[in-house]
Every structure is written in structure tokens, then in C-alpha cells.
């Protein structure tokens, strides 16, 4: 099956620096894919090349099998991009903006779909307001709607929730997840790692223009070797003299380990010391830990 996005040996040089240093990436159709990395890693540059806004210095990029340079019309028809910058045209209302955007894609009678998109993004009450009159969050919703006017099979969102209130984040993700369930491929960059963890099936981490990690979210989380157990204990814990147990107050203790045998051994020793375990909670490292570790060591 044709990949939704295929990127080979992508290099982007600016006079002062190289923003992408040979990126290879394939995103399958139907994926919910996360593109993470610190500021300046090259995420927006990569997206811009896919969208045809920027030209690669070397390498190739394709959307649904269409080269973004030589087959740009086919490629762009299949791609919807929500740009990182909050841009708008102050001359028009929300509805005018969306109709005009539809027209650019050759769609004339698109009002039913536009109404549906506005409905899902809670934009209908704003439909006839001028763009200038909208709050930042509302403008962001219009940008999302603009990217969707032509029902693109591949949707890329470049930090769509940066500086956006919780209600929009929830509205947006509900809608985007439903689009993903209908078969749209979603690529997302975000600074909220819990968002990526909750939404993305696979994640690429970018640093200094290179991919430093590319794996399923599950595998990435598993890379965090350290786990942490929080235990509520009853009995003379201190007297039992068990190494590795750190008091947390309120009768709670924390135990860090890498392999589950260590936890089993701990429980056996507690049992031997007649200390009762009243509660035990296991916490995994979250994506933020993994991200920080990978970025720091890359």
C-alpha cells in the first residue's frame, strides 16, 4: 500500500545552518503519527517541504505517492496543513474564508461539508464574523477548518494546541480522532507530550535536523527502563531495614526498580518482616521522561 507520507534523504540547508540533515521517514495510511522535538529541531521545515512551501536542498518527499515537486498538484490536493503561525486574512468572514479556501481546491458547492466542519469545531456561531473580530483560539479553529475544506486523506497539524485553552484542545482532539477513525492519516507536532502519548500510535523524535528515535509509542514508553511502585505499608518498616524503600510520609513508600523480579523480592522481604502491604500502585515513566532522556543523549 502507498505510504501517506514518504521522505527520503531530506536535507534542507539555509545559509547559516542546516535545518534538516538527511531525514528518512515513512508514515502509513491511517496512522496517527507524532513528530516531536525541541524548538528548532526542524519539524516545521519538514512539514513545509511536504506542503511545498519550502524546497528541499536534497532528497525527495511524497504525499500518497505523489512527489511534492514534480506532482505538486496531486500531492497538495491530498494534504491539509494547519500552519504553526496564527495567520488569517482580515478582509473576510469565517464563512468567506472557508468558501474561498474550498474554491482554491476547485470545490464550488462545499457548504454542507463546511457547515459540518464548523459544527465539529464549534465555529458555527462565529460563521459570519470577520476574522479580525475572533479570539486567538477561534482563529486557530478556522485554521484547522481551512486545512480540512477539501477532506484531505493526510492531515498535518503543526502545534495546533500551542497556547490554546483546554476546551479547544478537547474539541479538536475529539474531531481529529474521529477523522482518523474514518481513515484520515494524521501527523501532529505538539509540545504537550501527554497529548502525543494519548493520541499517537507512532512517534518520531527530531533533534538538530535528524531523527533520533522512531518507534511505536508503546515501545518508546517501554524504553523507559525504570519503573516506580508506591506502597502503603503497615508495620515496622524502618525496623525491617529494607534497602531501596524511600519514605513519602502518610505511611507511603516509594520503590524504584527496573525488572519485576526486584519487586517480587521486595514483596517477599516485606512479608518475611511481617509488614502488610495495604496498597500498591505502579507508575510507568511517561513520554516526557523518555523524550527528555532521548533528546539529552542524542
Amino acid at each position, binding site marked *: 500500500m502507498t505510504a501517506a507520507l514518504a521522505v527520503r534523504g531530506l536535507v534542507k540547508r539555509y545559509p547559516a545552518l542546516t535545518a534538516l540533515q538527511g531525514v528518512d521517514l515513512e508514515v502509513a495510511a491511517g496512522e496517527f503519527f507524532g513528530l516531536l522535538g525541541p524548538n528548532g529541531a526542524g519539524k516545521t521545515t519538514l512539514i513545509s517541504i511536504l*506542503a*511545498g*512551501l*519550502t*524546497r528541499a536542498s536534497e532528497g525527495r518527499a511524497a504525499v500518497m505517492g505523489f512527489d511534492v515537486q514534480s506532482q*505538486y*498538484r*496531486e*500531492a*497538495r*490536493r491530498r*494534504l491539509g*496543513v494547519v*500552519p504553526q*503561525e496564527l*495567520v*488569517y*486574512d*482580515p*478582509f*473576510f468572514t469565517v464563512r*468567506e474564508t472557508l468558501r*474561498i*479556501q*474550498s*474554491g*482554491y*481546491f*476547485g*470545490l*464550488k458547492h462545499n457548504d454542507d461539508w463546511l457547515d459540518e466542519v464548523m459544527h465539529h469545531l464549534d465555529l458555527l456561531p462565529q460563521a459570519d464574523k470577520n476574522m479580525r473580530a475572533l479570539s486567538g483560539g477561534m482563529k486557530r479553529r478556522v485554521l484547522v477548518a*481551512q486545512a480540512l475544506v*477539501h477532506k484531505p486523506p493526510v492531515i498535518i497539524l503543526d502545534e495546533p494546541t500551542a497556547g490554546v485553552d483546554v476546551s479547544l484542545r478537547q474539541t479538536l482532539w475529539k474531531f481529529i480522532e474521529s477523522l482518523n477513525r474514518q481513515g484520515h492519516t494524521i501527523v501532529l507536532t505538539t509540545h504537550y507530550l501527554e497529548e502525543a502519548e494519548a493520541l499517537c500510535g507512532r512517534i518520531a523524535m527530531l533533534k538538530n535536523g535528524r531523527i533520533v528515535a522512531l518507534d511505536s509509542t508503546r515501545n518508546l514508553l517501554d524504553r523507559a527502563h525504570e519503573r516506580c511502585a508506591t506502597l502503603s505499608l503497615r508495620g515496622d518498616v524502618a525496623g525491617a531495614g529494607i534497602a531501596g524503600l524511600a519514605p513519602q510520609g502518610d505511611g507511603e513508600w516509594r520503590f524504584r526498580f527496573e525488572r519485576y523480579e526486584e519487586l517480587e523480592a521486595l514483596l517477599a522481604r516485606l512479608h518475611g518482616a511481617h509488614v502488610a502491604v495495604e496498597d500498591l500502585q505502579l507508575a510507568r515513566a511517561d513520554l516526557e521522561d523518555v523524550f527528555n532522556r532521548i533528546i539529552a543523549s542524542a
Partner: protein
Amino acid sequence: MSAAFNTLLYKELLRFWKVAFQTVLAPVITALLYLLIFSHVLSSHVQVYPGVSYTQFLVPGLVMMSVLQNAFANSSSSLIQSKITGNIVFVLLPPLSYAEFFLAYLAAAIVRGLVVGLGVLLVTLWFAPLRVEHPLWVAVFALLSAGVLGGLGIIAGIWAEKFDQLAAFQNFLIMPLTFLSGVFYSIHSLPDFWHRVSQWNPVFYMIDGFRYGFFGAADVAPEKSLLVAGACFMAISGLTLALLKRGYKLRH
């Protein structure tokens, strides 16, 4: 034409029409002021063609000047505003071809130029009787000239990164070209040196040919003016298309 082209043209027309007060009315009033002042000051001193009063002579020049300046202003200001506010991405992301992009901005610039030119012409009817000997020549020169300046406006809008760069383009290229072109006088009345300089100014031929359409008389043969205007249009269009195809300053 494609729906994408139609939409971009419609958007560009709507953009200036929504602020017609600044984009149409203001330049008409400016031209009217020129007419009042120059015709008052000079009408008793100058007669260029027999049977044509100075005020009558001035009208085609002012109309053409308005056509040129507004065609240029339309494409250049639209592009630079879109670039500076960033909303240029809305036309860069869709599958518009560079030819559609060019033609839409060009056509909108021509329409704006012609609407303002027509407005100026209508207003001057109060001050001087209209004489149109060859309406087809009038139309052809108006169209071609608006096209040349519309194309130049696209180039300037793409090239400029700030408003003051665009203003420099306007002040150091467009204004001298239009003012040193015989809007207010026949170049035969100029000293020899400036006469010869003017002959290298393509805008002179646009205005001269345009004026020929009105009075049936001109400084040079209208066929020659047509050739110059046509060649300019082809050259500017070719250059604009080449820049757009390369993505010059639009797709880095």
C-alpha cells in the same frame, strides 16, 4: 478557466472592492486634483495638437497614469500584505499552478486599473468634452499597460520583504517612469536631452498610443507604441512566470 483561478481572482477583486473608498475613490480624487491644478495653471500657455485644448490633452494622460499606478498598487500591495501577515500560505498550500496564480493577480490588477481609469474619465467629462477617435486603440493600450504594471506589481510584491522596499520600488521606478512619460506635456516640448531620455521610457509609448486613440494624433506612430507596449507586456509576463515557477521568495 479553472475554479481555482476564478476563486483567486474573485478574492483579489473582493479585497479591493471591500475598501473601494481607498482603492478607487481616493485615486480618482487625486487625478481630479491634478486636472484642476494643471489645467488651470497651464491651459492658456500650452496647445499641443491643433483643435485640442490643454485640458482635453491632459485627460488621457491622467487616465492612463491612474490605470498604471492602480494596477501596480493592486498586485504589489496584495502580495506584500499577504507575505507580511503570513496568509500567503492560503494560496501556496492549494494545488494552484503558477500560471493560474499569475493570471489571477494580473487580471485583478487590470480590473482595478481599468475601474479607476474609467472613474477618472467619467469625472473629467465635467471639465472637458470627450473625443474618442479610435476606441479600439484606447482599449488595447489601457489593457496592455494595466497588464505591464500589474505584472511589475507582482514582481515587486514578491521581491519586497518590507513595505519600505515596496515604497522604494514605487518612488524610484514607477513614479519617475510615469511622470517622465508625457502625462502633462508632449515630449516634443522637452529639451533635447530629456526628449531622448523619454524615448527610452516604455510608459511614454503607452500614454502616447493611448492618447492617439482619443485624438487620432500622437508624438510617435501608434503602431510603434503598440509594439513597445506589447513587447513590455510579454517581457514582464515572461519574467513574472519564470520567478513564480522558480518559487522565488515565495517557496524558499
